[in-house]
């Protein structure tokens, strides 16, 4: 895998060498021409005298001046052309550089996705193999089927995230905000999420001042809440509590999701919102995921005109994600 990635970088670096050669060739040519024009007047005088044309001093001065003028004109035009060449080379190089970064991102993506997709696939397959080969009693069959189902759910979520990211990159983020009561929305969503995380003993606690109107796309809001709560449950660990809090802050409604996990451990909170970026600590690497959750949250929230921030170093430890949506006080909630 690594070797192939390096090849990709080789391929995009090759044009750089070609452009280097072009610039070098141009520089040599320009120097030679400047030299030629600088001595044009003198050469003409020499040739005319050699051809037997006697020249007066005034004629000599005129010829030398004409040569100088030609050189000035040439240096000006040649310099301009040189600038154009340099500019186009710079533009090409910049795009090549971008290609290199893209190639590297692609490689990260492939390696993260390979691991993340293959692991649940492998365990689901072994669970099913074991049952098919009659290696399980009734109790174990139940347990294996439940676990295989969880593996498939994990796979399904990952595939959805990847497809959504792809759609976002291709056609932008498409949200249809409407006036909604985030308090009611959140309660309904959390009920569903509660069932999902119950098996691992994760409790979700909600703190809300009551009805809070905001302009949100209900489906997008559900996804944002799901991703943040799943992250918090993942890093908080089995048996932990995820704290969800709603509040009003001027023209925004604020949603905060907090866990009591290990925190960001030095990771840059802004970089974590980029696609396929995960915290660097090995402890974190062992948690499932490809690094798309926060990216999707950021894109959806920004499409609403809101913002995302992450914070750790809180008393009691853990990480707090804070997202804002435009408030819709005074408007009527959609039915």
């Amino acid at each position, binding site marked *: *895998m*690594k*070797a*192939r990635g390096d090849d990709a970088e080789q391929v995009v670096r090759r044009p750089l060498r070609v452009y280097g050669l072009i610039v070098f060739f141009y520089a040599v040519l320009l120097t030679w021409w400047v030299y030629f024009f600088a001595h044009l007047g003198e050469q003409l005088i020499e040739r005319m005298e050699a051809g037997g044309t006697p020249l007066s001093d005034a004629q000599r001065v005129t010829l030398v001046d004409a040569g100088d003028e030609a050189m000035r004109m040439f240096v000006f035009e040649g310099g301009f052309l040189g600038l154009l060449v340099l500019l186009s080379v710079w533009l090409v190089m910049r795009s090549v550089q971008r290609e290199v970064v893209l190639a590297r991102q692609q490689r990260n993506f492939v*390696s993260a996705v*390979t*691991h993340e997709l*293959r*692991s*649940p*696939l*492998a*365990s689901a*397959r*072994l*669970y099913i*193999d*074991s049952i098919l*080969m009659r*290696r399980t009693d009734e109790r*174990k069959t139940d347990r*294996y089927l439940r*676990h295989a189902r*969880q*593996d498939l759910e994990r796979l399904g979520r990952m595939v959805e995230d990847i497809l959504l990211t792809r759609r976002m990159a291709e056609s932008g983020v498409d949200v249809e905000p409407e006036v909604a009561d985030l308090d009611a929305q959140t309660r309904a969503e959390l009920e569903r999420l509660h069932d999902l995380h119950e098996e691992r003993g994760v409790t979700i606690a909600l703190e809300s001042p009551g009805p809070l109107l905001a302009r949100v796309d209900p489906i997008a809001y559900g996804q944002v809440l799901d991703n943040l709560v799943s992250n918090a449950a993942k890093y908080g660990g089995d048996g932990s509590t995820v704290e969800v809090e709603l509040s009003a802050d001027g023209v925004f409604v604020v949603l905060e999701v907090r866990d009591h996990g290990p925190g960001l451990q030095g990771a840059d909170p802004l970089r974590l919102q980029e696609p396929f970026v995960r915290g660097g600590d*090995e*402890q974190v*690497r*062992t948690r499932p995921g490809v690094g798309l959750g926060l990216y999707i949250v950021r894109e959806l929230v920004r499409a609403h005109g809101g913002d995302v921030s992450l914070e750790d170093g809180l008393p009691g430890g853990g990480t707090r994600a804070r997202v804002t949506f435009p408030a819709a006080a005074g408007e009527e909630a959609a039915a």
Partner: protein
Amino acid sequence: MSGESLMVVEDEAHLAEVIADNLELEGWSVEVVGDGKQALERIRAAEPDLVLLDVMLPGMDGFTVCETLRGEGSRVPILFLTAKSGRDDRVRGLQLGGDDYLGKPFDLEELILRVRAILRRGEWERAPSPAGDALTLGDAVVDFATYTVTQGDRSVELTQKETMILRCLAEQPGAVVSRADIVERVWGYDVFPTLRTVDNFIVRLRRLLEPDPRNPRYIHTVRGTGYRLTP
């Protein structure tokens, strides 16, 4: 056959559970460890008969675990289980001293067959060789038990694979042993990406044992087939 102790080093809880359950069902005793560093300590302490080792692990990656163990002279058989299945990763795992390599997802039956095959090879290695405990080639003496070559007062350590290749050849002196036979004996079936990999090992063995590696006197290449040892 049964009763051997296996260690499963895998951080994915589901995968570790279902692998351990099935290996136990085969009659082996199984210990599960979910962290690379911890695995290293447990392997040193428990000396299992086989380690099933994931590559991407918290604490320390599987390649480093394998490399560290081999560096300490441990000969515990290692079967890599990993989601990385690029050819480079396979080769790397085997060159670091891994015995076999299984890419996720894999068949339950295949896993069990491979575990059996490795344990059987282990038995072959531990069993007394019909060729004796040592092989003498000129003034060099290869000790199958300590994996060393002694030439006069100079002594060089061989890797486990190098020793096993020599032993495989020495058990049939004068006969042609095909590359496929060597691979099957020493690594197990279809492990290597190419049979030519055996050649790399032979090159190093010749450098150690032959007075003139360009004109071998002991380890001969039989074109298109394999190798022949003439002590």
